[in-house]
């Protein structure tokens, strides 16, 4: 196995404004993101050999992409992997370039959620026997918080404080990001006293449900070099799909094996042995604050049971040793399901190229994205590791 490391480069990216985009259709959002990627790369639709689109529920095939972007009969594939859908589109596009099938490809993720008239996540279900508990995502992830507090004997108040600190950090980062859905800072007590959504998770523990799109143009490093000096290299793409958590009574909700497996595979592929020191920044799947807390440990950024301590010490803030969700994360940038994975790559791309404006980190050479679909016990986890062009 040769792996993906340094075989694919990103030469252009775009990301729409996320939020309640009442005036924009899924097509409008894709055009907004892809136009930015064209401008960024200096390419046009005529240069794209093939495209992959990720959307969880906005449409079913590649046709809406061809229709919106007026592609001339190129291959377009729609992919879906729950909340890890966008990274899946990116991964398939990257592998096609690495395989030598195409020179220049597009990966685009999009979701139009706000037309459902429902403020939660409305994803249609296949016909079923109707006995699955009505357990929306907040209630499923809240079970991880309950058990995490129990296992590490964290008093409820202390646990809520740690989760609030994560929300406060992501709101701060979001306030520095004009494309984020939510751009207001919040205070710890505001998060702690917010109405319960699914106990123990309150309003500020839950990410935004948003409309949005994000796009990336990929090519080989050789072609990238001929186009620009500040391309970004794909260092690793790890994917792990699990389903055993609810079938095994010994899995305890305080770690997500899919994240552990996917990140380990990605670290191996990228040649990373100490993620906490070798990675400069990470965009992780903070669908809920408890998810971000557990991810710190699963990715090896914190020791098991010690993530709360690292949160308290500010390790993951913009000024910390390992800034996480510098763009506001799902919490504040928002979570258009099929777009989020590429939105994460977009922020890493901006940081690696020094274009993150008020959020710019002093050192950003290696960045990680972590995109999680499903629910505790049965996840799809997609990890990407990216390096600036001089890491090649």
């Amino acid at each position, binding site marked *: 196995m040769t792996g993906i490391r340094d075989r694919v480069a990103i030469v252009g990216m775009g990301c729409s404004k996320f939020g309640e985009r009442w005036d924009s259709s899924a097509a409008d959002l894709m055009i907004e993101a892809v136009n930015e990627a064209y401008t960024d790369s200096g390419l046009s639709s005529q240069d794209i050999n093939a495209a992959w689109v990720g959307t969880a529920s906005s449409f079913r095939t590649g046709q809406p992409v061809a229709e919106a972007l007026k592609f001339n009969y190129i291959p377009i594939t729609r992919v879906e992997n729950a909340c890890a859908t966008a990274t899946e589109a990116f991964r398939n596009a990257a592998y096609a370039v690495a395989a030598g099938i195409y020179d220049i490809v597009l990966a685009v993720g999009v979701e139009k959620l706000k037309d459902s008239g*429902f403020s939660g996540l409305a994803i249609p279900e296949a*016909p079923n*026997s*109707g*006995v699955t508990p*009505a357990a929306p995502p907040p209630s499923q992830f809240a*079970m991880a918080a309950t058990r995490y507090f129990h296992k590490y004997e964290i008093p409820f108040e202390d646990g809520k404080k740690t989760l609030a600190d994560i929300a406060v950090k992501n709101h701060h980062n979001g306030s520095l990001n004009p494309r984020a859905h939510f751009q207001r800072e919040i205070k710890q007590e505001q998060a702690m006293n917010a109405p*319960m959504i*699914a106990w123990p998770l309150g309003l500020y523990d839950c990410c935004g449900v948003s409309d949005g799109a994000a796009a990336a143009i990929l090519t080989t490093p050789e072609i990238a070099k001929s186009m620009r000096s500040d391309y970004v290299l794909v260092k690793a793409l790890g994917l792990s799909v699990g389903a055993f958590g609810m079938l095994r009574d010994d899995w305890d909700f305080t770690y997500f094996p899919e994240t552990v497996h996917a990140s380990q595979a990605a670290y191996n592929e990228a040649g990373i042995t100490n993620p906490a020191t070798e990675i400069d920044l990470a965009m992780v799947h903070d669908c809920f604050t408890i998810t971000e807390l557990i991810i710190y440990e699963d990715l090896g950024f914190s020791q098991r049971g010690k993530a709360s301590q690292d949160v308290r010490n500010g390790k993951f803030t913009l000024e910390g040793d390992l800034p996480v969700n510098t763009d506001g994360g799902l919490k504040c940038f928002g979570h258009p399901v099929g777009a989020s994975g590429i939105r994460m790559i977009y922020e890493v791309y901006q940081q690696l190229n020094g274009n993150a404006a008020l959020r710019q980190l002093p050192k950003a050479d290696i960045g990680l994205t972590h995109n999680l679909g499903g629910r505790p016990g049965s996840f799809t986890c997609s990890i990407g590791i990216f390096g600036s062009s001089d890491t090649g």
Partner: protein
Amino acid sequence: MYGITSYATYIPWLRLTPDTDGWPHSFQRSVANFDEDAITMGVAAGKLCLHKSDLSKIKALLFCSTSAPYAEKQNAAVIAAALNLPSHVLTVDLAGSIRSSTSAIYLALDMIQATPEESVLIISSDTRMGMARSPLDDSFGDGAAAILLGQEDPLAIIESKSSQTSILYDLWRDSSSSFVSQWEDRFVADNGVESLMIDSVQSILSAAKLDMSQIYKLAINAPNLRQANRIKRLLNATDSQLNTSLLELIGNTGCSMAIMELCLALDQISEKDQYICLSCYGDGVDSFLIKSTRAYNSRGKDMESTMLSINTGHPLSSYEEYATLKQLWETGESVRRPDTSPPSVPAIYREQTKNIHFQGGKCDHCGYVQYPAQKICVNCQEQHPSSVVNLSSARAILFTYSMDYLAGTTDVPLVICTINFDTGGRMLCVMTDRNIEDLHVNMPLEMSFRKISEHKGVTSYSWKAMPIRLEKGEQA
């Protein structure tokens, strides 16, 4: 010699009590939760009744209810499946009258006479509705009772029986109405329950050459407290002979009431050869003379006490809460929710073992227990046959949980939990009949058959977790 070999009652957890805001009465009534109906309560009573019985000996299940959810489609069949009765068991719905429960005893006795080695399970269950705030709404209660009739070591034998039919519009509900109606109760008392029941009881006693003083307990379905007291006086019965606590604490539970009174009387049997007179009114009257075969204590404390299940209730906070869960009014929601898709009948059919029989599997190769049963074992990851693990009577612990305030149920917050069975195996489910103040990781749980979803008349039933309500053998 055949008679009653086992019995049990199920009384739903919720109550309208003097502590309930908007309930003006000093008496109480039981209330089926939003996820209960006559079928689910019947399963609960049946499960308790059968907990030590040999299911292969059961010849028939007679299900009696005037409020069964299905008018066309057999309710008894759903109950039989949830109780894991063999498919050759004859299942019958008896309906139309609250007397159907004792008429079922009549039929069962004849069936057992034909094949004495077999037993017949009778389950009665009702959740009748009166118009909001009407006297019937006040006096009705919800609940179920089950008795097993057979010849294997009966606790009590049925010595004689009598039945008569009468046509009287005292209570009725046509098929298009949700609510029971009644005629003026003075006329009804004089010409219905009182005259017929007194006549029937006196006749069965005199045929056996017994007088009232020789009867240990009277088990009757008096419609309300006032009439119970009148019947007591007219029969010259004492307070001890005719206990009215069921009417005071639970209400008139329709089809199941006479059987519940019988269970309550059987609970109090103190010695051999004590007589219980069971009399059940409803478009006529059935009466039975029943004699104990031993003292209560000698039959062991493996049955749950009826009085304890009567006493372990939880008051609803308000009449409004009651009206909401009984769907007496339509409530609006602040959140606009996506429409749920209707259940797929083939999927319900295919998943019977998992959802209704509630069986997991134990891998024949490595012994790992998993729910639902897997074709490829999650532990050894090989394809092996697995053996059945019955989970309906299993205990579990609460491994972790959350409380969802937005999930769109009448039971807010919805308690979503992951439970680990003591048999091995894990399940994601909803917890019902719970006090949120009592929830904690590792709390012990039992399983209860409930309605999970309803769409255009197709109800998806399955099992939910609930805190353990009473321990077997506990005394009230």
